[in-house]
């Protein structure tokens, strides 16, 4: 039996009386695109925060490629290959699009306590950065100041930054949040191309995207996984329909 890339066991996190993560367990094998869905306030973003290292769980463990990473820092997790995007676009607004990705590429070189030489004139940084932009179809905007990008393009840039870290697992927190239909379909097509060779955990409200892309789906309600399985099975699960998917096609 091959071990899963990510294994979450009995994870708990409470804020006062609110159990945001309540005995949550999940296995994601290498190469899988796994969607995490659930109503607002189900604890999806809190879970992402614990996997990426921003929040410490109260109990339970997170294993990555066989190693217990529950107590590791954000930087240590990034180094092991976990990168993420944010629900609300999080970019470096004063840098150009290319520079945003370049600073991510630079992070993969080891420490940056280097005081001589401009990384923005270094092809070892620039070339991979440009390739990441090509992968998300943003190369034509490489020299635009990032804050001047349209909302959808900023989401593409976030993807490029996440990819530039050469991740083994990408955590995508609502990659199409706040997007028009048309832009959301563009991101969907993009993710479809990227999913080969990547393991993804995807939090998403756009059900078209979830069912088109994911290999497995987990439904989260009040911090618990109420159902988990292939999209068709989850869609048919009466518990899910009751808890969440009332208006489902």
């Amino acid at each position, binding site marked *: 039996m091959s071990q899963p890339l990510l294994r979450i066991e009995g994870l708990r996190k409470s804020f006062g009386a609110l159990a945001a993560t309540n005995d949550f367990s999940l296995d994601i094998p290498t190469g899988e695109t796994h969607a995490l869905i659930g109503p607002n306030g189900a604890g999806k973003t809190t879970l992402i925060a614990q996997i990426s290292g921003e929040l410490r769980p109260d109990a339970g463990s997170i294993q990555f490629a066989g190693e217990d990473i529950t107590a590791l820092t954000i930087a240590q997790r990034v180094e092991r290959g976990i990168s993420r995007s944010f629900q609300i676009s999080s*970019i470096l607004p004063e840098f150009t699009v290319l520079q945003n990705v370049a600073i991510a590429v*630079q992070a993969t070189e080891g420490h*940056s306590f*280097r005081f001589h030489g*401009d*990384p923005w004139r270094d092809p070892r940084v620039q070339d991979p950065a440009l390739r990441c932009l090509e992968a998300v179809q943003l190369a034509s905007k490489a020299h635009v100041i990032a804050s001047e990008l349209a909302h959808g393009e900023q989401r593409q840039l976030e993807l490029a930054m996440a990819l530039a870290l050469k991740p083994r697992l990408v955590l995508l927190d609502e990659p199409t949040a706040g997007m028009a239909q048309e832009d959301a379909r563009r991101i969907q097509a993009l993710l479809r191309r990227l999913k080969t060779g990547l393991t993804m955990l995807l939090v998403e409200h756009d059900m078209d995207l979830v069912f088109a892309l994911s290999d497995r789906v987990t439904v989260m309600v009040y911090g618990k996984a109420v159902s988990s399985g292939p999209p068709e099975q989850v869609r048919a699960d009466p518990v899910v329909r009751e808890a969440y998917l009332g208006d489902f096609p």
Partner: protein
Amino acid sequence: MIRLIPSTVGLALVIAAIVLLPGVATALHQPFWISIGTRILIVGIAVISLDLVVGHAGLPSFGHAAFFGAGGFTAGILSVQAAADPSSALLQLIGSEAAVSWPLAAAVAGLFGLLFGALALRTRGVNFLMITLAFAQMLYFVFVSLPTYGGDEGVRLRQTQHLFGRDISDPLVFYYVVAAMLIGTILGMRMLMVSRFGRVLASCRQNERRTRFLGYRTDLYLLLAFALSAAGGGLAGALMANHLRYVSPQMMSWFQSGEFLIMNVLGGLASSYGGLLGAAAFIVLHETFLSFTEYWEVVLGIGLLVFVFANPGGLARLLADRR
């Protein structure tokens, strides 16, 4: 955005002005300008080093005077000790040789920077500002209550300063020594701001959380920036001690920290020689208005408001001294 000239041309102009000032002062029979010029260059070093933290890393430090004073007192105390024990060749050397006392002053201030920074960097924003201010005030009161080194009165430096054995107490020689240190500071800053380290600082300034999720241990980068900035402040303090031949706790007062910040904003945040322009504008305005009215700060305050609203990039932005 108004951009009059490219950054390198601006730098060349600045360096030319620094080099030519003493000649012009002599030709116009204004030797006093050399003394003011020396002060501007020294304060310029302090402000440029402050800019590493405030402008480049985006941390509102309100305690830079502590490092300025720490450097000043390092030079001052060494000089006092040397005067107290003329028989000690070692003390004579340390107390009067700038090649020893200046790096030592920078190192002492840098260590204070490491200590204060490690604690202050547990916070951000206004809390960071208040903690840096609190540390600076603590140091200020320590020195005010140290009778050994003059307390409130401060101490006078009695040693003649040497650099690699050569006397540098002549005002013109000292001016050029300081000018060399300043130009070195500017060039160092220009190297730093485009380096990998500098890019990480700029990234922290824009979005520290994102930077952290790229895998950078942002605390360490910011701490090093803070310590380097403190060391620069300490060097400026030692130069000022040699220039005035006097140090007092006033060097560490929050008023001094505030002036450094004003000069930094006036000169332009996240620049390389903006701090020098800010220092020059502030000190020249100070000298000019002080002869007309005691209430020159009111004039300065209003002028500063108007200028900063009209020109958020500061004086340096006019010379395109950014990235």
